[in-house]
């Protein structure tokens, strides 16, 4: 009952006119970002943090946090949806979670059914968003109640599990993923130590006392890194765009895709809840599942509507599901949620079990706005599909320098020093080089965000145990979490040694 009243309060927050506007701007920009080649959900969200920070600067801290997280979450699932548009129309996925959609989506477009494919993708995303929302409402309270019983030792182990899950599945080489995680953790130690007040690795540079700003690092690595790549590799977006044709799906289309949407949403949601397994895995799994379940598996790859409906539902379900560990446990399960978490921390809102008690407006407002955002996406996308198809043709000539200018503006607006702008450019170069050589970037950001929390909990646990490191294995919950973390790393390693190929998550 209390959950319901909280949810109603959340709707009250989300339905305030300015928050409706923010949600609208969020999904609009998100869809645009998803449609534009080269900018994925991660860099889209990172790029917009400073913009939202300046937009919400007139509001009280609590309201500002709620409004900007509503906008950023809108960007997140808007981008997830927008990615499918390019998969269907251009046969080039906007981001890796819509790779599978190209298989049948582009075939449908070639048969003149692009409009129907886009509509089914929108409907599937909508249903999945609702499923994720219900799951979030049901699971949020119980999960955060469990987590409230956690002490520092349990928390430390939980975060180790989070890092293990993300690093274990990210990228092609687990060693590289771990190197990136550790680098992120190391970078987080720069600045004043918040237990003792000792300056660490600052070398008397006053800008470093506050630590490396997460925003600068994230925008540099993701947004600028991708821009540099597009310039160097001379990436152009001049593919042939398929005709959209009729948009409204027929009754038989709907009947054919009802099952796949339902299965895809559920599968996606549960995949999303698991840290590390993100939207890309979810879309692959659901496509494989549909092919197995289908009575006509031979139609897949030739424009089967189920081949669009299922993965599109699954990737949206997963992005909703990924909110659960973020909001209830304070553990981001993917690159994008790590960035959302960094944004929350910027507003002094700590995601985790206390979030629902301390900042109910933010937590429930976000949950309610996910519903509203999904409705908006549906309303926005059905009639505006043709407009978004036009955006695909934005010349990179203007796009790329503008992204650099927006990044510089954003970082300067928040930090007001040119030191951070130089840092931004440096991380852009680094991000390009690392991504070029298969070093996944998301674990680095994750390490940077989680670093201070891991260190604090570790030190608190060790203080309570008088410096005895065995405390982490003596507490039963902590031990179980550590064992799961260990298995998460060990099982894929063993499988690799036995010559089996592992699916890796590359959207991270």
């Amino acid at each position, binding site marked *: 009952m209390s959950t319901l009243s909280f949810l109603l309060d959340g709707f009250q927050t989300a339905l305030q006119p300015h928050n409706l506007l923010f949600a609208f701007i969020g999904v609009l920009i998100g869809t645009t970002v998803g449609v534009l080649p080269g900018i994925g959900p991660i860099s889209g969200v990172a790029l917009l943090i400073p913009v939202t920070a*300046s*937009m919400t*600067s*007139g509001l009280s801290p609590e309201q500002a946090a709620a409004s900007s997280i509503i906008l950023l979450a809108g960007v997140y699932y808007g981008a997830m949806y927008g990615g499918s548009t390019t998969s269907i129309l251009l046969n080039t996925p906007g981001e890796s979670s819509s790779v599978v959609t190209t298989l049948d989506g582009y075939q449908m477009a070639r048969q003149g059914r692009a409009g129907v494919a886009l509509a089914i993708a929108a409907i599937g995303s909508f249903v999945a968003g609702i499923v994720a929302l219900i799951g979030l409402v049901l699971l949020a309270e119980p999960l955060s109640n469990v987590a409230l019983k956690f002490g520092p030792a349990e928390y430390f182990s939980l975060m180790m599990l989070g890092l293990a899950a993300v690093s274990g599945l990210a990228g*092609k*080489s687990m*060693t*590289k993923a*771990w*190197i990136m995680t*550790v*680098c992120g*953790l*190391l970078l987080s*130690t720069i600045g004043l*130590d918040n*237990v*003792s007040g*000792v300056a*660490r*690795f600052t070398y008397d540079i006053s800008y470093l006392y506050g630590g490396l700003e997460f925003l600068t690092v994230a925008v540099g690595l993701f947004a600028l890194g991708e821009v*540099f790549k597009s*310039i*160097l*590799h*001379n990436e152009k977006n001049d593919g042939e765009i398929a005709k959209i044709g009729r948009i409204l799906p027929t009754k038989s289309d709907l009947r054919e895709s009802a099952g796949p949407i339902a299965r895809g949403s559920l599968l996606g949601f549960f995949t999303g809840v698991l840290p590390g397994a993100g939207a890309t895995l979810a879309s692959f799994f659901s496509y494989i599942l549909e092919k197995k379940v289908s009575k006509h598996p031979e139609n897949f790859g030739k424009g089967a509507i189920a081949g669009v409906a299922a993965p599109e539902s699954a990737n949206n379900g997963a992005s909703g599901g990924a909110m659960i560990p973020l909001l209830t446990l304070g553990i981001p399960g993917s690159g994008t949620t790590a960035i959302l978490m960094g944004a929350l921390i910027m507003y002094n809102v700590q995601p985790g079990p206390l979030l629902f008690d301390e900042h109910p407006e933010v937590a429930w407002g976000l949950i309610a706005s996910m519903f509203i955002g999904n409705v908006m996406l549906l309303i926005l996308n059905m009639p505006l599909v043709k407009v978004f198809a036009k955006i695909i043709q934005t*010349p*990179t*000539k*203007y796009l*790329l*320098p*503008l992204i*650099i*200018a927006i990044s*510089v*503006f954003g970082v*300067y*607006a928040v930090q*007001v020093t*040119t030191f951070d*702008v*130089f840092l931004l*450019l440096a991380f852009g*170069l680094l991000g390009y080089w690392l991504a070029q*050589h*298969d*070093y996944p970037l998301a674990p680095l950001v994750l390490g940077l965000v989680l670093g201070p929390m891991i*260190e604090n909990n*570790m*030190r*608190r646990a*060790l*203080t309570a145990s*008088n*410096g005895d490191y065995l405390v982490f294995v003596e507490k039963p919950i902590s031990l179980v979490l550590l064992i799961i973390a260990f298995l998460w790393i060990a099982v894929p390693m063993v499988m690799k040694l036995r010559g089996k190929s592992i699916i890796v998550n590359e959207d991270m």
Partner: protein
Amino acid sequence: MNKTADRIAAVAFLAIGALFMVESLRLSKSAYGSVVGPNVFPFLLGLILVLLSVKLLFETRRYAEAADKKPPRQYKKFLIILVAAILYAALMETIGYVIMTFLFLVVGFQTMAKGTLWKSVVVAAGFSLGVYGLYVKLLQGTLPSWPVWFQ
């Protein structure tokens, strides 16, 4: 997987890890109210990074030599834009946001593809004046304003 690049990276990460280990030894070992000093966490992480770099170094021995040739890269374009961006950051506080953003964008647009100059000028002016007007005049934010000799 590029053998040379990963070897260089592994050595670099090894050096970073070692640097953090050495430097954390210089930090104070105790902290009031905590048994564990501020030096422990970075030291352990540095150690892990060193071990991981060694692992990566060993892994590079199994890489096949990359035979495929890289497609041509637009180094010239990239360098012009990078230098423009560095100048943009360096001169923003002295020359002001609007002028530097305008100049950076015009250079950026024209470097990406040579086209009619007036289009680039219009877009660049629109963006720089628009952002400045919205952010500084409307939202009361802080950006470097016009240079002294211009006012």
